[in-house]
């Protein structure tokens, strides 16, 4: 790198100035080119009857511990539950009919699990890549490299990953992995969707599920809210929800249409792209130090060693 100092700095700062707006923009979106391959699951809350079969199926498939309260028990609905290390999915009950044309029903039920974001914040956050997004869109976890920093839990906007706080040596982050098998790569094959008696859960290609959801909305405008939750939320999620009442009434959070990971990634890559900024700062500071030392050296007699020679060595 035989640039002289001015060139070096100029080049670095110039590049930075040119690239900054772009870096803070849409950096991360470009990455999801094969979105068409993504699988998904459509939850139709107007069809859910709160039977908790999905919970049971999930429990068995993932070999989760036996729950204290049986899966046939409806009393669990008394409080709003969240996915935990012992239950990757839970169904919650909300007062009121699921949709305007089902007035005979008194409650709405909504299943919660990881939404398998298209741009998952948890994956972006994970320090070692323990959480990854497979090509078909399932967000899976590899406990072998995880160090348990729990940043993924901070990052997930939906409050999904749970932690085994009680495990002493090998606690894991637990969440729905779309029933994908990390080790064998056997592919998403959700037990919950298979178990749902009313097929309120439909599993398939995300794109076709979107079509299906919109089709249902078009056919039954009286029943559905004209919004597929998850189509755009945090940049899109693999799990989609169709509701007959505003999504926020059934435990789905209002979300921005961009992924939080966009912001952090833009900052990260903006600052560290090719190491330009660190290099530039190093050069600038080194130069200043050299200059100041030379000044002191000239004013009094040389008293200390300094980095000036080194700087010269690097830049000349």
């Amino acid at each position: 790198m035989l640039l002289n100092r001015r060139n070096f700095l100029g080049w670095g700062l110039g590049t930075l100035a040119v690239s900054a707006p772009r870096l803070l923009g849409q950096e991360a979106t470009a990455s999801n080119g094969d979105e068409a391959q993504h699988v998904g699951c459509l939850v139709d809350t107007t069809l859910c009857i709160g039977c908790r079969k999905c919970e049971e199926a999930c429990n068995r498939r993932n070999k989760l511990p036996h729950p204290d309260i049986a899966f046939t028990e409806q009393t669990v609905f008394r409080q709003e539950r969240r996915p935990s290390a012992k239950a990757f999915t839970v169904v919650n009950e909300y007062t009121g009919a699921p949709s305007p044309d089902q007035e005979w029903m008194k409650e709405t039920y909504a299943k919660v699990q990881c939404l398998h974001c298209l741009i998952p914040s948890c994956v972006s956050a994970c320090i070692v890549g323990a959480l990854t997004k497979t090509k078909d869109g399932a967000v899976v976890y590899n406990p072998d490299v995880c160090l348990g920093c729990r940043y993924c839990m901070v990052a997930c906007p939906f409050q999904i990953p749970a932690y085994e706080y009680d495990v002493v040596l090998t606690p894991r982050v637990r969440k729905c992995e779309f029933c994908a098998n990390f080790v064998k790569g056997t592919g998403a094959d959700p037990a919950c969707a298979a178990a749902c008696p009313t097929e309120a859960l439909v599993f398939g290609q995300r794109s076709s599920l979107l079509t299906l959801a919109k089709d249902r909305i078009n056919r039954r405008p009286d029943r559905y809210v004209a919004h597929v939750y998850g189509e755009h939320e945090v940049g899109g999620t693999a799990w989609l929800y169709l509701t007959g009442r505003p999504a926020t009434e059934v435990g789905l959070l209002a979300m921005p249409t961009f992924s939080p990971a966009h912001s952090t990634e833009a900052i990260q890559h903006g600052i560290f792209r090719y190491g330009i900024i660190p290099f530039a700062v190093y050069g600038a500071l080194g130069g200043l130090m050299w200059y100041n030392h030379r000044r002191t050296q000239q004013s009094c007699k040389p008293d200390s060693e300094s980095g000036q020679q080194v700087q010269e060595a690097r830049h000349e």
Partner: protein
Amino acid sequence: MNKLQPQCTQKPFFTPGTTMLMVLAAIGFSFGLARILNGLGAVTNLDNFYPWGIWIAIDVASGVALAAGGFTTAAYIEIFGCHQFKPLLRPAILTAWLGYFMVAVGLTFDVGRYWNMWQPIINWQGNSVLFEVAMCVMAYLTVLTVEMAPPVLEGVKTWTPKRPALASVMRRAEKPIVFAYAWVKIVLPLFIVAGVVLSCMHQSSLGTLMVIAPTKLSPLWYTPLLPALFLLSAMMVGLPMVIMESLIAGKSFGHEPETELLGDFAKVIPWLISIYALCKFGDIAMRWEEISFAAHPDATVAWAIEIVLGLIAPFILFSLKSVRQSAGWLLTASLLVVLGVALNRINVYIIGYYPPFAGKRYFPALGEIALTVGLIATLMLIYRFFVTFFPIIASEVHAGTMSAEAQHAAHHDAVQPFWAWFFRGTAVVFLLGFVALYSLVHTEAIAVSLKASHEVQTAKISKGPKIETAAFKHADRPDAYRNLYVLNSPLLNKTNDYYEPVRFTHRTHDVNSGSTCSLCHHRQGSNMNDRVGDDIYKMHAEIDVRISGTPCIACHKDLTEKQFQKCSQCHLSSNESDFPARIGLKGAYHRQCIACHQNQPKTAHAPTDCVSCHHPLVPDHKPLLKIEANTQLSRQTVTGKCLGCHEETGHDILKTAHWNWQGRTPTISGQEHSTHIGLRNIIDNYDISLIPNPRLRDFFHIGDVRLASDWKDLTKIDCLVCHDTTATYRRDASEETIAWNNVAEKVGRPSRANCGSCHFYSGGGAGIKHGDLSPLLVNPDPDVDFHMGKVDMRCQDCHITSKHQIAGLSFNAPVVEGRIGCGVCHGEHPHGITGILSRHIDNHVKTVACETCHIPQFARKYPTQLSVDFSTAGQDRTDIPQQFGKPGYDKRYGEQTWGQNIVPLYRWFEGSRQNYLLGDKIAPDKTVVLNEPIGDKHNPKAQIYPFKVHRAVQPYDVEQKMLVAVKFEDCLWRDFDWNKAIAEGMKEMGRTFSGKHGFVKTEMYTSIHHEIAPARQSLGCADCHTPENIACTRCHTNAAGMNQPEHTQRVYPAFPNRFDFKALGYEGDPAVTGGRFYMFFKKGRPPK
């Protein structure tokens, strides 16, 4: 000239203060140990909502921020050339080094898998802010170590141990130390700059960390500018931190505070504060719209404190010259900045963090606080250790003593220029390498962006299971339609099935829906191969017929001519990748069923929960039982295991008739409200009574009751007799022959074999008592019992069970726990509403029980006992031949007769009976009827029922004129002394015996309910009515839906006059003379 030079403080290490710190550290680390041994959950208040607590907010975030003194001072002095402050550099570097040490230790306790802490070194994840922080912190710790090296090496070099051994070690180490010192001194400037750059990187990244949580972090703090704010605040806090520390250290070591120097040093601070404040306020102004101060009052308070006390107040103070000249005020102002920045970090990481759905707010647990305090105490101890033993803190050098630095300058001068360049080269390679690595990680991260650094094999959409339509059939597709279909879903069978398939009673639903086939069959096929069919609504609209409200049968007289679409023809597997819009069979069924059932009134008895339609499959109990290796279970321990989870069920069992052998007897006339009658005290024709005969009693009871107290003892219950599925368990088998573990692991729902293990043997042997129950029913031919043979119904499918109370009615065991009837499945119009003839047959149901026609004969394949003569017992006779393979004489019981294929006796029965109870007087010259059914033609509740009648000659008490209990086992059967056996038996029943016995004829009824024949074999009209009177089909041509066009004929020509109408109270054949159709339905012929 007095010059400030770094020196070892000449103070003792151990003081009351340090002891105090040691205690705090010890407490803290004992909590740390507890966290290592018991896990995070045991020591912290962290949960899924608050994954980060004060160990991150204080130990890490604030720790890093407050360690900023290191890089700011270094930059101030070395880079910006303010060399006059050099005395402050070493303590600042030491503090920074210690701060990062605290970060590392704190993190070790905080991360869940501390043993995996090295993973980021090889698993790069360039998108992760945390990865950047981790790498940077590691690098900076290295840099700080280099920066710390000079004082440490100086300290070591000048150490002159008194012990000779150590002294010799020191002598030998001198050369390497000198070498290392020279290296460090030469490359130090390079590292100082690197340290500043690295600090800027991760100080800002600590802010970026929370940028990923826009929806959780309160808008008071959330801004994309967080990294800038964090960096600026770190720069701002660095110098005050150094000031604070040297003032405190000076005080603690008794130095005069260097107020003048520090005051000068502090001049720049207001500028730094104002830069930060400008950014902060500018940011807030820009986001003013988003900010709501009312949303979280506690956050607002914390925010206000941070701004006013941590930012505005110190700005004012540091700007004042008077403050900068007073040690006390300097300390106050510095403290405010330090605490303000620490509060800012806590705010961003904890107080401003509002995760959705969180129930309660996080507050640190005792352990978290203690460890944090302990860590800080440790830092102070280490600080004191270093300043005590190494030349860190500057103090005035007395003339004549050469300063350590001056000493070592000499060493430096000794280094050859070649080596100096070599040293610099190594450092440059190191630093360049690091930066190159960094760029690489990030470039790679940009390339793959959000993808994994670790590629996972691609998951595929599972193809819909390939469905063999041929194998997937309803139970016997009918010509027209049948009553029962097994609704099954191939998808469920393939994956996770929790229930047995539903047995769907088509005809009942047909009747209940008013024959509106289109409710379910919304498509109609033109032929068997038509996979799609026509939409019947559309089709009918085209031909101008409205189908809603009109039974299909109104037009489609004969359903056989129409091919309705099987549900499975369209709805097969769900989640089909080519066509997800098509719901699967499972969804189609459930939506259809639930849509109707949830709207049914309670009175309709339409089931609304899962288990009313299909039985849950019992999960594999092997993992649940958790039988320790090498333990051998026994009956007692198995029951214990069961009760471990199903204790409630145990209490339920103690309330059942199967356990108590007594209970409510609403069907015994005169005893409707009694609760004391039951198998415990009833007298019958077969075993006479069970209680005095322990082996019989034990065989038939569902537990081990030997003592009076056992009747209340849960642990005596025998769960396995009903729940064994291996068919290897028997009540009378000896304990050693049973593979207990295997049996226990495979428990399941009772099968016919389980119920049959007692009920098929009632009366003391196979088929003896009931006539309609025999071991054949374990696996019967459909001809023997259609329900069990054809559609494999279990006993409890009809004998509906709730809390182990089993519905049903027995003529012998009189306790009733619920009633059952055919109507539950077959509805009110069991013969269909598809024609007048069906209706005519349905009318019979009010008078004739279903069993009467549908069980034309009982004991069809297995003989049953018809009579026994106890008076002949005790002889050794071989003269009586076997009947149907059964002995005609048994020494224990006497002469016996047997029958097979028996036509029942028909009697009116209204649901209750006269029952002989022990103690009732008898007329010895007449036949005693033990349980005579009550009812007659005029009783509208009564129906004609089929019965088996069993006749016996049994002992009675001649004096007291009553029937008696007999002790057979080990008594009568030993010496056939009736008087003794009766006396013993009566004693066990709490009764007395006069000592004189005689024999009396008795009769016992058993109602016939099982061995339902296939419809084709049920009685035809002519089987009861005289043929010349019933040319019904002359007019009633329409018999759609009936599978028995020939049913008007006589099905059993061998049994003329099956009904004795006179005995039933009629003058003659009611079809001729008129019967209850007229009485109750006001139609038909009036009685003559």
